[in-house]
């Protein structure tokens, strides 16, 4: 099922196009990376999905239905610029935000209890937000985002300000939620996280979609047919035609092959020459490299 579909979304601020005919679909249960450099229009897209803004043209479908305000109760949004009421107590604050998402007071209390227990932070309940560290309030913000068990989660830079332990905690929660079938839109600048977490991405720049696909498919699409071989002894004297060495260190070589060639041929060549091979891998571009190239090309 398609959880969220954007069809030809257009949003203009004066003469500036913040979203220029953007379309993409997110199947349910996926962790979907929404990427783009600063000012690319990611926040505008997210704000339209969360009904903070309305598109000038185009259509957004939520689980097949045209997106309305009612759907916002089924969406959880953690913006990059986070904030909570400083003077409010953690427990009260979470209950308040949960009730705004449509939970009854009793439900809200119960869920707050559950999450505070889960994160082992029960003793924070009566602390005011201003007493918390940045990382601590980040956790509260995360709870506030998921407390109403939304079908679609939008997380904008969810790991910023978190220490490695808490990052891991949130990451495992994200995976857990994904396993439960929730759809997650993950917006970040940290590409290594995209690679680790997301199954699909869309890349936007200057309000336009410039790339879309699954992480593995994109890596394949943008690969440069390079292979890394680690070996001992001497490099075989004559490489096969169509292959050329682009980088060589002691016992490591990076070989560029032509489009038509297959890595197996290269490996066979090493084996035939009786060179002991320790590792052999195709070098795929990182999402970061793809991102930079595409943005620069655009």
């Amino acid at each position, binding site marked *: 099922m398609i959880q969220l579909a954007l069809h030809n979304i257009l949003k203009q601020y004066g003469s500036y196009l913040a979203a220029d005919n953007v379309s993409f679909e997110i199947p349910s249960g996926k962790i979907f990376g929404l990427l783009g450099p600063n000012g690319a229009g990611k926040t505008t897209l997210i704000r339209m999905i*969360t*009904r*903070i803004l309305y598109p000038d043209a185009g259509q957004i479908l939520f689980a097949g239905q045209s997106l309305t305000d009612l759907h916002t109760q089924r*969406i959880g949004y953690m913006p990059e*610029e*986070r904030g909570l009421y400083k*003077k409010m107590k953690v427990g009260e604050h979470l209950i*308040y935000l949960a009730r*705004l998402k449509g939970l009854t007071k009793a439900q809200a209390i119960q869920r707050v209890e559950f999450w505070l227990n889960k994160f082992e932070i029960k003793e924070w309940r009566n602390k005011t937000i201003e007493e918390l560290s940045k990382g601590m309030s980040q956790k509260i913000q995360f709870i506030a985002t998921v407390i109403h068990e939304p079908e679609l989660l939008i997380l904008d830079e969810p790991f910023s300000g978190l220490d490695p332990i808490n990052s891991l905690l949130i990451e495992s929660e994200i995976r857990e939620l994904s396993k439960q079938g929730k759809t997650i839109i993950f917006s970040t600048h940290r590409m290594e996280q995209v690679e680790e977490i997301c199954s699909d991405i869309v890349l936007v720049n200057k309000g336009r979609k410039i790339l879309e696909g699954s992480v593995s498919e994109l890596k394949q699409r943008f690969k440069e047919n390079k292979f890394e071989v680690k070996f001992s002894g001497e490099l075989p004297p004559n490489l096969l035609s169509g292959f050329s060495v682009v980088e060589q260190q002691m016992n490591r070589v990076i070989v560029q092959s032509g489009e038509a060639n297959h890595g197996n041929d290269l490996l066979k060549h090493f084996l035939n020459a009786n060179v002991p091979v320790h590792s052999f891998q195709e070098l795929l571009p990182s999402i970061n490299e793809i991102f930079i190239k595409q943005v620069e090309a655009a």
Partner: protein
Amino acid sequence: MNKIFIIIQREYITRVTRPAFWIATLLAPIGFLVLMVASVLISTYDNESTTVAILDESGLFKEYFKQNGIADATDGSVHFYIEETSFNDLESIIKSPNEKKKYQAIIRIPQNYNLNNPGNPVISCLYAERIGLEKKQFIIGRLNDMVKKQRMIANQISAETQDLLQKKVDVAFESLMNLNEKKGYDIAASIVGLLMAMAIYISIFFYGTMIMKGVQEEKTSRIVEVLTSSVKPFQLLMGKIMGVGAVGMTQFVLWIFLIFLINIFVAPLLGITLANQTTTIHTASANDIDTDSAALLIQNLSQLPFTQIMILFPLYFLGGFLLYGSLFAAVGAAMGEDGDQQSLMLPVSVPIVISVFIAMNVMNNPDSAMGFWGSLIPFTSPVVMSALLPFHQPWWHITLSLLLLIAGFVFTTFIAAKIYRIGILMYGKKITFKEMIKWIIAKN
């Protein structure tokens, strides 16, 4: 609707449970008490008395002085002495550098003074220390009486006729339209009207600023992005205004209760009551001290249309609060994160201040055109109409004014919601009026 209620609840509870709320609630009546004591003390403060020498060079008043003397002011502010030395002697006395002078002024009745033409030559009053306005009025009054009486004697008018001529005219101003408006009613109505007008004026500013600060807090803490993904900006705006409004109402009820307690239990211990405090305000500006004014005032207070006031005052209070509350919220949303750009407050605060000026004017001219229009225009009507309510306004006037106020409220909320919706998510940019107008015109 349910979400607005949740927001109202939060706005209300977080504010009412703060110690600052209770400190303000308890301190304000104490402030009121201090104000009461201060106003009585200031109005009864014994200014240094002025001693005036009267030098009658014309000799016209010799007999008069012998028989009647010239009475000092009852509050001791002005003393008169009849002097018979020369003007030069007196002049040197009052010009002397001595700190404690015998006289501060000389009243010189010139030699060729003409009772039948008191304008030429005139009586002069030469002073070494400035004489206040009230004292001047008092001195003129005394001299006027003196000249009048002497003129009557000169014209051989009998003592009885003199008494008759001296009798004051008393006019009972009473309304034909309203039987309760008896003599002195206007003073009672003015005082109550002005108190209500000031109450609305102060609370619009006080709670309006509270709303503005609240909006700004949400903007700077960035929570607004989370909130607007759950509720519509309009709901957020309404929730905040109504929540703060409920806080204001609570505080008001508590204040009235506390002031009531102070007036009943504490003030009598200090010898002050609201009634005699208000009469001091009234009599301070009047020349003739009406000893019955306190009794008259209390009698007239009971004649005010209290039922009407009790129903309508809260409505105007609410209307004014909602109208300006939404505008203050819009200003808060448009302001920068650091809360600068105070200039954005100007278009909101100017009409409130103007309405107070109109309300003051209305005290003197309850049926003036300015009062009429001021009580209809929604930006001024909450304050102006409150000042007018004790003067028995016709129902059609009140109805029209309330309808316009509702329309005004709907209009400002509509405008404010548009500014608010965009303003709260606008960071790091100085917002101009031109831009705000663009937001108002823009569709979504």
